[in-house]
């Protein structure tokens, strides 16, 4: 249930709605259990959670879903975000949380499913109902944007 809650919590960005999403998803899973014919039950359950959250997002945060932007993913030499530099070591959980929460939902879910839940590209593709290539480019753009956000924050701090 942690995986379900985790993804719901990141998509809704608050505890109460996340709990509602998980509860609703479990009820749906229970109801439609007969319809489940696949192999990967975890991906199936996460798909239901994800779709439940998106319905909610559409109703409550309509604007957030208009997202596909073109983040430049190419590396530049960048002082503030040199992994070995002191500044980069000051990135803490709160900064990261804010940066991830600032991502559009599709990018946020890709990062959460990959880096926090450890799903493969194929599983993420199944959950998000997109081709594997889209998962790949979403993750690349999401990480590029995270890096940019964190670099900006580090500069502000300095």
């Amino acid at each position, binding site marked *: 249930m*942690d995986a379900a809650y985790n993804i719901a919590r990141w998509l809704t960005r608050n505890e109460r709605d996340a709990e509602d999403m998980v509860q609703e998803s479990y009820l749906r899973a229970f109801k439609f259990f007969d319809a489940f014919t696949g192999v990967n039950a975890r991906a199936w359950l996460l798909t239901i959670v994800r779709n439940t959250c998106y319905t909610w997002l559409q109703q409550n945060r309509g604007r957030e879903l208009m997202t596909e932007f073109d983040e430049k993913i190419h590396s530049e030499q960048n002082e503030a975000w040199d992994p070995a530099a002191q500044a980069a070591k000051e990135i803490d959980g709160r900064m990261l949380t804010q940066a991830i929460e600032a991502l559009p939902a599709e990018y946020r879910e890709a990062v959460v499913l990959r880096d926090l839940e450890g799903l493969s590209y194929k599983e993420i593709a199944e959950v998000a109902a997109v081709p594997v290539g889209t998962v790949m480019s979403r993750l690349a753009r999401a990480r590029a944007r995270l890096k940019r956000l964190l670099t900006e924050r580090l500069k502000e701090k300095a």
Partner: protein
Amino acid sequence: MNCEAAQNLLDAYLDGELDPPGRLEIERHMQDCGLCAHGYEERRALQRAVGGSGLRYKAPAELQQKIRFALRREANAEKPSRTVPRRWFAAAASVAIAALALLVVLPFMRGRAGDDLVAREVLAGHVRSLMANHLADVPSSDKHTVKPWFNGKLDFSPPVEDFAAQGFPLIGGRLDYIDNRPVAALVYQRRKHFINVFVWPASSDKQSPATIIERQGYDLFHWTKGGMNYWVVSDLEQNDLRNFVDMLQTEAAAVKS
């Protein structure tokens, strides 16, 4: 590979989602290109920071309680029969919860264990044999040379056949190590493609038909017959490889009988 292409693949490389040739190419590129190597380090640092900062939320304990209650109510609403004691519904709901919980855990355990692990080792063995240029310890197309070579090196004698007439010449044999034991690796060639056949004794006499696993652009067939486990791996076109597998299965049966 140029920088543009490499940059687009760095994330997939980081996530272990590239096939072995792709991996090699990008590793080669990074040896020569500081900018891409740096880009990779950045991404790795970021991934570590995300994964290692305790950012994964855990479901509150009350939530499970709440959901159990909701599911029970749901089960009651679905079958509003008064003749069956309410306790039965509670039990049914508990079972449903347990089933759902299992459902989330089980496929993971099943998927990661057993065949999946062996498949990983078999593929690694195949790729290693090609990369290290170490296909055969006994390079020979003569089965009467290859088969006896295993004597004293293994505690079993693998069936060895040459299929040169059918277009799959035997290249040689090699010792490998899979599933915590030394195994026989037989190498065949089909045009420019190599096929590794891994053979070792099965733990039971149970037969199983050939099943296929696709991984990273390779096809892996495996089956159990005549007390032996067989794993066949190659980048050969799937139908071609299937023909080879069919031949191997008939031949092994003919040798036995």
